[in-house]
């Protein structure tokens, strides 16, 4: 089921959707959005790509099997909670940088936690969907 229209569109949509997902992730603290939705949107981007180009192409694009994302994401999330421990605060206290970064704005350790969620969600969703579509 290779539809040329879908295929062409998917190739352009992938970077756009990924960018959009990052945007959703970053703005989460002030506007609707966040790591969970962002992760889902990013997964949708990859799913769309795989529907259009086939699973192999997407896996090539990803380089690593999607379940590698899960431990990475979990570690980022946990690390963001562990850092405050070294500074004498309780686990998962949110710390903030003093000056806002350009474009992104004020950055705190909560953002890294959200990035962890984002990566885990991508990993989990893609793992489940890819395994099922491979094995059914």
């Amino acid at each position, binding site marked *: 089921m290779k539809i040329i229209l879908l295929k062409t569109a998917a190739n352009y949509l992938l970077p756009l959707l990924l960018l959009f997902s990052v945007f959703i992730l970053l703005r989460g603290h002030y506007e609707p959005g966040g790591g969970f939705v962002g992760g889902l949107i990013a997964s949708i981007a990859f*799913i769309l790509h795989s529907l259009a180009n086939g699973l192999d192409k997407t896996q090539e694009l990803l380089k690593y099997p999607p379940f590698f994302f899960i431990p990475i994401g*979990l570690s980022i999330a946990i690390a963001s909670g562990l850092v405050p421990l070294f500074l004498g605060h309780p686990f998962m206290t949110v710390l903030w940088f003093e000056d806002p970064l350009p474009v992104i704005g004020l950055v705190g350790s*909560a953002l890294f936690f959200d990035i962890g969620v984002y990566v885990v969600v991508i990993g989990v969703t893609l793992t489940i969907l890819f395994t*099922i579509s*491979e094995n*059914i």
Partner: protein
Amino acid sequence: MLLAILSGFLSALLLLILGRQLKGTLPLIVSVLPISLFIYFASFLPEISSGKTVFYNLEWIPSMGIDLDFKIDGLSLLFSLLITGIGSLVFLYSSAYMKGHIYIGRFYSYLCIFMASMLGLVLSDNLLLLFIFWELTAISSFFLIGFNNDNTASRKSSLLAWAITGGGGFFLMAGFILMGSITGTYSIQEMLSSGELLKANSLYGLMLFLVFVGAFTKSAQFPFHFWLPGAMKAPTPVSAYLHSATMVKAGIYLIARFTPILGNHPYWNNTLMIVGGVTMLYAAFHSIFRIDLKGILAYSTISALGILFFLLGIGTQEALIAASVFVLVHAFYKAGLFLTVGVIDHETGTRNVTTLAGLRKVMLPIAIAAGVAALSSAGIPLTLSFISKDLIYEATLSSGKGALILTSLAILTNIFLSYSGYLVGIKPFIGKLPDQLKDVHLPSGFMWLPPLFLGFCGLIFGFFPSLLDKSLIDPVLNALGANSNNTALQIWHGLNLVLLLSAITIVCGIMLYLILKPSEQKLKMINRLDFISPHSIFNFLARSTKNTALRVTQFMHNGFLRSYLTKIIFFLVCLIGFYLIKNVNIQFYAEKLTIISIYEGVVFSMMIIAIFTIVFSSSRLVAIISTSVVGYCMCLFFVYYGAPDLAMTQFSIDTLTTVLFVLVLLKLPPYLKMRDRSAQLRDGLLAISFGTLISVIALQVLNEPTNKTISRFYSDNAYLLAKGKNVVNVILVDFRGYDTLVEITVLTIAAIGVYSMLKIKSSEIE
């Protein structure tokens, strides 16, 4: 001290790794461990004899009251010496008995674990620590009974033993926790002073019940005794070590240990006397009908354990002296008998007492060892058990009320026991040697020296009982909280009633042996009563539990997702519906509802159309797409009511679900009309009632005054405390970040589940 206990576990680990290298005479090296431990514990003897108690403390989990507290007093020293002493002999014996066995490393490893746990059990001064070791002995016993794991009977027996002793362990733990929470400490030493507090508590009866169930299951008391004969499937050294000399005495140890804390109360004394009395007579009577040597020994062991409980139940000073001596005596002669039976079994290949005879001609040392042990078990003068028997009679005679009944019970039991002792220790060795046993020969010295040694121990202590009284028995009595001033074990008590009773026992035992011959018929006769025995009742219960579980599982867990959903929703509808009708005053205020706007109306009609499409469509794909239409419409509602975050997430989830559905369902055969009318009607009814239920709940919620404290806290503080304007996200990553962390972990587990299930399944098909 800690090292002494842990050394067993460490060696077990080492043996598992190096097990394959354990060939030839190498297993002998393992015996160094129990021997050196025996010497180590024996070195405490002078200190303990002088009335001291040695403590070792190490903090482990102080916040929960679990510390590595160990205590050596008379009682724990007596047991430690038995464990390491008999252990040394059994280790030596096994090196010959198990010679060339492929899993000899594993065997020794289990034995080491057992020895270490047993030592831990008798030395612990902390109830919870004691319980841990208690369970470890049950676990190692499980492995040892089922050591020949290619044999179904072995596996069954080990499972049975585990079920009974492990089940009893739960009771024991509950009892310990009860004791701990009443006294506020788990240290046994500290509990010694709160005996009155425990006895005055209204839960004293329950506590006793729980502790007794634990002790009785472990020490094979009626009606839990039936696992012990089954445990004889273990290799014979194991039976000698665990199921006669040491592990089954853990219950005795426990009751003895608690005597100064919980004892001296009518409940305590009467229960122990009744259970012990019933067990000792019941098992002794049963033992005379068996024809399997190990079966005879198993029943006589149960009976001996009964005697011990019985004596602890009497609880007078005489009874406690008798109990402490009998623990030692029984270990000597019963382990000796077991080891000789092991030799017979090993060399002749049979344990049937009716076919064995005349073995003295081919294995004289074994015959001597067995003979001495048999005489010991009969309590012939000049053996230690003669003294112990006298002590038992003294204890029952001086027990005051009911002395007559108790004494006759003890005499009857002892007559039966001496008969079964003769049967095992003398019968196989006298008479004419059958032809098929002519070429039986004496095994290596490691197999006949240990039983011989045990026999002579009994004789030496019998000749010189003064070796024991001040050094070991006095400290034991101290630990039991009894007066220990004038213990003096004597061979000659003078011409009195006790001597007469002893003589009656011996004469009756010999007469019984001469009259009664073991035979298959008698075994069959007693087996006819099996259907009312506790064993059959237990088996019946176990079987019916299994069958019920199977039926319930087949009904509840039949593998069809639709059936699970039906059951879950049906249950919910019944439960919540029942509650709503019974307890909630359902009210409906039309004026509270807002007017439906045009957007909402349009979206709502779209949903209705989509739902009808799902129900009546004849194509899978159409049904799936319509489902997602319903989902998207729901998202629109979220948008209208100010929940953009939820809408976004729901939107993405719906998209992914649809993709997933398409992936899976496209591979299925085309839509078929599989269901009949009645099933459709049932599902429709269920769906409508569930929908109604949810609507009613939603309307009911409107009637309740809303509590906005929590949501107000979040909206007020989101920016102040967490510097975020999106309250939902702030809750997710900050206020309740812990939850999110757990949630993504759960997601991970789900992914691993899907991945491993599908990957393993597909690789199996290949």
